[in-house]
């Protein structure tokens, strides 16, 4: 007959009896959960980056033997006019794409009201972000068509005609405008969520102090939207550097290479029908990576500063 102990055993089990894992559980578990992510990130992202650095020092067609040529690919880049054009176009994209942020904020402020059916309007404004970039590209290339497009129909009333995508000076801007359409919708949705979090008491207080219009927006609303602005900035910069599908659909890099950006040029040189200069493509990729690295470093630094600020 077993007798139940009157007092429960409050002694902790002896340490020697616990396994190594149990002893380090708290420290190990997060790493275990992270392991699959870290593994795949290393294999599919980090290692290829270093591999690209390596390949960029070779002349290689992807099939035969690779020949080590040192920095010759980079030297060639400095004299390559197509590369120069791509670089400038990347800059145009970076600067003009940022217009999506104020545009998105404007639309978000406009839609942030309670009217019957506002949800419908919101979803209509969000629609361009939902549809594929390929469709956006097609729609805009039809819009720009020189003889049948809507743009020239409208311009025709003023006696003007423009071949946006056929003119090497205009084509890039034409594509950026097409890209702004979905990007603005994206920024809008970010700001709409942000506006929900704006503190009504602060707005009330500001109103009592006599703030209204631009001042209210600039000094009271926008500072409270900082997290949303940060995210909008990040996704827009990355979106601008990733611009590929629109270019491929709308102009295929043409007319005569005037709308290429670095990512498209890299694809053309390394992977497209007449490319397969893996080393040269990798060199372009490295340059693109270094540009991105500047932004990524800045983002990481901001996040780190924010977190430290939160703790302190």
């Amino acid at each position: 007959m077993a007798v139940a102990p009157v007092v429960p055993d409050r002694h902790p089990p002896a340490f020697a009896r616990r396994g190594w894992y149990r002893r380090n559980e708290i420290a190990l578990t997060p790493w275990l959960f992270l392991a699959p992510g870290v593994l795949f990130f290393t294999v599919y992202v980090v290692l290829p980056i270093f591999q690209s650095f390596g390949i960029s020092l070779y002349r290689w067609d992807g099939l035969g033997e690779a020949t080590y040529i040192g920095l010759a690919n980079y030297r060639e880049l400095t004299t390559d006019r197509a590369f120069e054009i791509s670089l400038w176009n990347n800059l145009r994209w970076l600067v003009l794409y940022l217009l999506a942020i104020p545009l998105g904020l404007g639309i978000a402020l406009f839609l942030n009201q309670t009217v019957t059916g506002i949800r419908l309007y919101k979803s209509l404004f969000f629609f361009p972000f939902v549809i594929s970039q390929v469709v956006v590209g097609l729609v805009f290339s039809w819009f720009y068509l020189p003889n049948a497009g809507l743009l020239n129909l409208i311009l025709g009333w003023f006696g003007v005609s423009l071949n946006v995508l056929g003119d090497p000076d205009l084509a890039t801007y034409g594509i950026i405008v097409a890209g702004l359409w979905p990007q603005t919708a994206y920024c809008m949705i970010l700001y709409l969520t942000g506006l929900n979090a704006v503190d009504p008491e602060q707005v009330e207080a500001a109103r009592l102090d006599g703030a209204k219009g631009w001042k209210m927006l600039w000094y009271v609303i926008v500072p409270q939207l900082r997290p949303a602005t940060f995210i909008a900035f990040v996704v827009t910069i990355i979106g601008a550097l990733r611009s590929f599908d629109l270019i491929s659909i709308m102009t295929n890099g043409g007319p005569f290479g005037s709308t290429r950006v670095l990512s498209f040029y890299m694809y053309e040189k390394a992977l497209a029908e007449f490319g397969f200069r893996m080393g040269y493509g990798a060199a372009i990729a490295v340059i693109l990576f270094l540009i991105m690295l500047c932004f990524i470093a800045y983002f990481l630094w901001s996040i780190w500063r924010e977190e430290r600020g939160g703790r302190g």
Partner: protein
Amino acid sequence: MRSILTALAATTILSGAALAEAHGPDLTGTLRIVSDMSNPAPRAVMEDLAERFEEMHPDLDVELQVIDREAWKTQIRNTLSANPPDVVNWYAANRMMPYVNAALFEDVSDVWEEIEGLDSVKGALTIDGAQYGVPYTYYQWGVYYRQDIFEELGLEEPETWEQEIANCQVILDSGRKCYTIGTKFLWTAGGWFDYLNMRTNGFDFHMALARGEIPWTDDRVRQTFANWRELIDMGAYIDNHQNYSWQEALPFMVNGEATSYLMGNFAVAPMRDAGLTDDQIDFYQFPAIGEDIPMAEDAPTDTFHIPAGAENKEAAREFLKFVVSADVQTDINRGDALGQLPVNAQSEVDEDKFLEQGFAMLSQNSPGGVAQFFDRDFPAEMAALGMEGLQEFMVYPDNLEDILQRLEQARQRIYAN
């Protein structure tokens, strides 16, 4: 005497081959074919070929995989280097060079010793004296034009450059454009350059240029561009052609806004589909420009190859022989099948106005030679830069000097490797 001997030898080989085919060498195992004939009509042809070959060899299992034609242009590299099939599709001339250099295509010179009637296309499959594949179809290029508009304006098919220009002037005066073209994807401009250069300087010069032996800044090349410029300055081409693909440029011809189209024979089918009858469209050979320059033509050839790593090479070789045999060639190139020209001289050409004219042109009126096409004769990188320059020239002819300097710089780098 020699030709009689060769003919005799050929007949013996042929009957030998026929005999072998009747009994059928005992092919076993699996024959894996990867094909890029993904458009509806070619796909049906390929499926039929695989089926017939399987019936001929009961012990052989034929596995056919059809891949999108455009996707195949980049996929072929992976396919050839990892787990290669036994037979693949590709293109002749310089386009197969990278795979031959990397020893990924099997030398099939032995197959060529057993087949016959393919002498006219042998050159396109030959690299350093050995053959690396067999052709299965090719098609002519030339000027497709609106016969009804020509009749209305009282024009005739031109044979010289002067006539071509005079015709064009009449067409322009009637408020139409002479030529439709869509240069968005660049290669269509390559067709124009091929013809203008082959007519101005001849086939041999054109090929020397393709091999990088002649500078782009050469005066003879400039002469080609000067001839081209005559048409551009007249306003012969439709406006904004840099916006259109070749298909998007078709409606100009269908609607009668432009009268001619320098194109490959594959343009006929969509023209017919768009409602043009054979009384409305016709074909002529690109007119002569320089005197005493033998006519030469573009006739791109599509091919079959055996990957070097294939497992069932015996069956693959039999399949190659089967594809180029006269009967099979007649069948698969019929108007309702591929609608192109058979590569075997002993095959029959289907009764089709355009196929007959094209066949006659290539077999009788192309003494200068047969080129593949700008993007197949020039090395890939030169072709890509070249076609971009050609498009720029068509839009901004004043940039010629800059374009030529650029191409010359590229030539010195590309061929040096």
